[in-house]
């Protein structure tokens, strides 16, 4: 049984269909990347998985349980954590942001997880009382990731964490995710355009116009012509 299984998913905005029958799965402890050009439907797919959009057709299962029409906060409680491109509350403090990351845990567990996160992200500790909006772009992403992991999720869903970061910071984010995934053993589904993430993943999907056009493990993806053209072609 897959941790996450998406079957023939159709979804979109109001009456505009964006996803035209997506099949995707994520296994325990697996790292899966979602590639696709701007407007391909990556964010839409992640939002649909989180219950933020209406599902027109198809099914979503998490640990075998049908969550197709489950409310967002209940999905989060089942163990799916999501970081959107924004991901944090700029007008709340770093500490409050973390607290909200584990909103449904009891206060003792929250406290423990917070200490753990401050240990992972020393930089956040020194900005504990600062408003999240006053952090640098890189620090905000760190906070977003820490907030995400607060609830001890089984599946972490990330929407373009590299967005707006310098190559150096992108490397740092990848290292942190790599390290934390080894420690905490969650699965990752990550939407990215940055090719630097390709080696981080074990398997991937390329979507275009709301359909999966290529899927497979890393070497399949790298040798695929569509991927080559779309990603490696524009690289230099």
């Amino acid at each position: 049984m897959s941790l996450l299984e998406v079957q023939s998913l159709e979804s979109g905005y109001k009456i505009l269909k964006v996803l035209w029958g997506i099949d995707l799965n994520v296994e325990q402890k697996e790292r899966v990347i979602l590639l696709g050009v701007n407007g391909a439907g990556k964010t839409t797919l992640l939002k649909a998985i989180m219950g933020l959009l209406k599902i027109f057709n198809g099914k979503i299962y998490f640990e075998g349980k049908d969550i197709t029409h489950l409310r967002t906060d209940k999905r989060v409680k089942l163990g799916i954590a999501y970081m959107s491109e924004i991901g944090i509350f700029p007008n709340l403090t770093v500490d409050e942001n973390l607290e909200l990351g584990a909103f449904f845990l009891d206060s003792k567990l929250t406290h423990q997880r917070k200490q753990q996160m401050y240990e992972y992200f020393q930089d956040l500790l020194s900005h504990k009382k600062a408003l999240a909006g006053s952090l640098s772009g890189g620090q905000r992403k760190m906070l977003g990731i820490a907030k995400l992991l607060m609830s001890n999720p089984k599946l972490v869903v990330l929407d373009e964490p590299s967005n707006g970061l310098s190559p150096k910071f992108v490397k740092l984010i990848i290292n942190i995710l790599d390290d934390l995934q080894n420690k905490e053993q969650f699965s990752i589904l990550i939407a990215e355009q940055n090719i630097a993430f390709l080696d981080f993943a074990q398997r991937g999907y390329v979507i275009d116009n709301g359909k999966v056009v290529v899927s497979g493990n890393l070497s399949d993806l790298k040798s695929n012509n569509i991927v080559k053209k779309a990603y490696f072609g524009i690289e230099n």
Partner: protein
Amino acid sequence: MRKKNIRLIIGIILILVMTALFALLPKIYNNNFLLFNIMLYIALAEGLNLIYGFTGYLPFGYVGFFGIGAYSASLLILLLHVGVVPAILLGGVAASIVGIILTPLLRLSGAYFAIANLAASQAIYYIISNPHLENITQGPYGIMLSSVYDATASYNAMLIVMFFAFMLVLFFRQSRFGLSLMAIREDSITASVAGVNVVLARTIAWLLSAFVAGLCGGVFAWYTSVFYPETVFSLNISIFAIVFVLFGGAATLIGPLIGTVILYGMYNFIGISTPQYFQLIYGLLIVMLIMFLPNGVVSLFKKVKDYVP
């Protein structure tokens, strides 16, 4: 953890001091009516703070809940001979029930919510003041509650309602529930993916806010004992409460308190004797405030100390 407790204690002390102050003031200052009205507006401002300060919805029709509370309590006393205190509590419940009926409005955002809420309060006003309902609501002829009039008891009831409104705001301010509301106000999607039940949390804030206004209405009816539909559905009540909250600073305990004391004080000392100057000063003050202190008077304190009760 520690810090949280200290903040809680500071808040409670502040509330107890304010309550004791208004309990003792009638003994040394004989304008009981003014003291009552200040408490009433503090409670209304704090009640409005629950929904506006913590969720960002600006309820222009807030007075609707006040009017519902006043009428429900009065009619329960007059028609069903319910005791005064239970009638006032049921007035609060009635306001919350109207709040439940109006929950779909929470799907609207910004100005649309404010306008729809205003329209709803006017609709309630027209229903209650309709001459065809004279047998039940007395229509436009108003309510006379003189049979249960008790100046001291109703003053004390207001004191308790003010205390209750303060405690609710303190709870919102210090609890994880309050934090979840502030997260929703910032960004409801990010809040929902943090595991917050957005609809439920908003609805609770909305109904508690309505409940406070309903209680205020019931106590006001008891204290004044004679009133008309236009008295308890006057749009000025909404506007006063909103301006007091904005002036003092929303989402804090002391903001609405400061706003009410300063502005309602001014209104009474210069507004009634020389209304022409008052309008001018009031207007200027509000314009200046929005330009220079958009987060209210408390934002001045926040420059010195990062936490203001």
